[in-house]
């Protein structure tokens, strides 16, 4: 535990010091929320989910914030590799599993904090939290998204030589995951041939889970959401730990 805490602590220190990163990664989901939310609020009719597009969009933007921050946090170990710091950690008499778990929890914490900031800001643009239990449930889903996608980032970083592939991963993996997750629109409104694809996107269940927690309405049963994203978290953590064990310097 103490080793996991040590790695986590380092992540927190770096996070708190990188003010520009904090603000930078808040700004994108926040702008999405403001421009899309207010811009489309009067145009978009949501069948069966009340009329308010902003309230629909908030859980999606919270999930987006957690997703991008966590993948980025995971992939960051490439920098540790390049700047040599990873060697210092790997040559210590500690297991790689502990290092990987510390890194995952560190990344997940920063991601959840980022998502939480969006959540708090959302309170000013229309989000009403009437049910504290639902709020905690949403937080739980954020934690699962954070852990699974940081582990996903670590898994990718363990096989990557440098940051040149980063843009590729962002454009061809992370962005489609986000786009297909139902963060921006209800998955039921998609054409019949795309609809089923969204069900293969683990983030869909994360977004729907958060949405259920915050608004009380979701298109997928929250229990199913919990089971799928929970299972995905376990699989990603195992995969990340496995690939990190084989990392070469």
């Amino acid at each position, binding site marked *: 535990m*103490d*080793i996991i*805490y*040590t790695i986590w*602590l*380092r992540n927190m*220190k*770096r996070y708190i*010091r*990188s003010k520009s990163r904090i603000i930078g990664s808040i700004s994108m989901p926040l702008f999405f929320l403001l421009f899309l939310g207010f811009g489309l609020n009067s145009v978009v009719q949501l069948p069966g989910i009340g009329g308010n597009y902003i309230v629909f969009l908030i859980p999606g933007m919270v999930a987006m914030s957690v997703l991008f921050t966590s993948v980025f946090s995971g992939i960051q170990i490439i920098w540790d590799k390049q*700047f*040599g*710091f990873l*060697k*210092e*950690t*790997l*040559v*210590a*008499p*500690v297991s790689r599993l502990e290092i990987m778990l510390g890194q995952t929890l560190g990344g997940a914490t920063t991601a959840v904090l980022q998502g939480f900031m969006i959540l708090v800001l959302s309170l000013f643009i229309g989000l009403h939290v009437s049910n504290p239990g639902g709020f905690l449930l949403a937080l739980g889903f954020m934690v699962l998204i954070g852990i699974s996608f940081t582990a996903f980032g670590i898994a990718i970083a363990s096989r990557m030589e440098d940051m040149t592939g980063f843009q590729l991963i962002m454009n061809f993996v992370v962005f489609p995951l986000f786009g297909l997750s139902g963060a921006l629109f209800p998955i039921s409104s998609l054409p019949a041939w795309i609809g089923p694809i969204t069900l293969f996107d683990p983030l869909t269940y994360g977004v729907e889970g958060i949405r259920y927690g915050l608004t009380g309405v979701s298109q997928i049963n929250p229990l199913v959401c919990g089971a799928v994203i929970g299972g995905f978290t376990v699989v990603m953590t195992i995969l990340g730990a496995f690939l990190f064990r084989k990392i070469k*310097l």
Partner: protein
Amino acid sequence: MTVALHIENLTRRFNDLVAVDNISFDIEHGEIFGLLGPNGAGKTTTLSMLSTMLKPTSGSATVNGIDIEHDEDGVRKSIGIVFQDQSLDEELTAWENMDFHGRLYRIPADIRKQRITELLRLVELEDRKNDIVKTFSGGMRRRLEIARGLLHHPSVLFLDEPTLGLDPQTRNHLWQYIATLAREKGITIILTTHYMEEADQLCNRVAIIDHGKIIALDTPQNLKDGIGGDVVTIRSPDPAAIVAALAEPWITRVEQHNDEVIVSLQNAEQHISTIVTLLNTKQVPIQSIGIHKPTLEDVFLSFTGKTIREEEANHKTKMRMFQRMVRH
């Protein structure tokens, strides 16, 4: 004297390239031991194996009696390493870098705090302890890394090219630190270097390594004595004629090297005029002539027939080809 490191037939291959070729030697406790050789000779690979970062292809080694293959954690606890490339977290302060290391090695909080203070004082970074490492100069970073490597009280410290890229003043300063450390703390230090003076001034014993093989191993003094006295370098348009002309019994060795002839002999100052007269009577032209006391550079040259710089140029092309191979 007890043995701190025991290395037996250690070998490491990367595909077809034999990076470390069947090396064997012992390092005694409290010794400063130098691995001297050009870049790409196999020094870092050797160090990586001894520090359990890389598995040997064959052969074995023990550090403090602990086998490097069978008990990795045991070895890791008893060694400290300063890598060739920087391995600090630049976003953290000096203190935080030390603290992170201390926690990784599970040093209890009170002892950790006390040792960090003590070590930062030793490397004269006490007043900068709360500054972010990004603001540190190359020399300061190196000192911090050495302090960090000592935090868990290792009995063996590996220094991989500890003064690479530092200015001469800082280099001298670091040498003093290293010497003091070995003397006062009784730590066994194994350092790799391709700086001849570094090995000469700092090390009790030096192993010269080239193409993965140990080609000589002794104290710097013995190695230099092995040359056979002083070194006279004669430059001439006809070096072969000089070699032929200097077949005298008081000359230990004559070697041609490009347009230079390197002559080893005792008491060169007394014989220099005889050499010049000899060459003049045989009408061999001389461009320039120089005398110096033997250095490890001469030792390297006498064993490999090449200067260390020529070897490095060689290795660079080879390594580039090798890297290309690995990447594809």
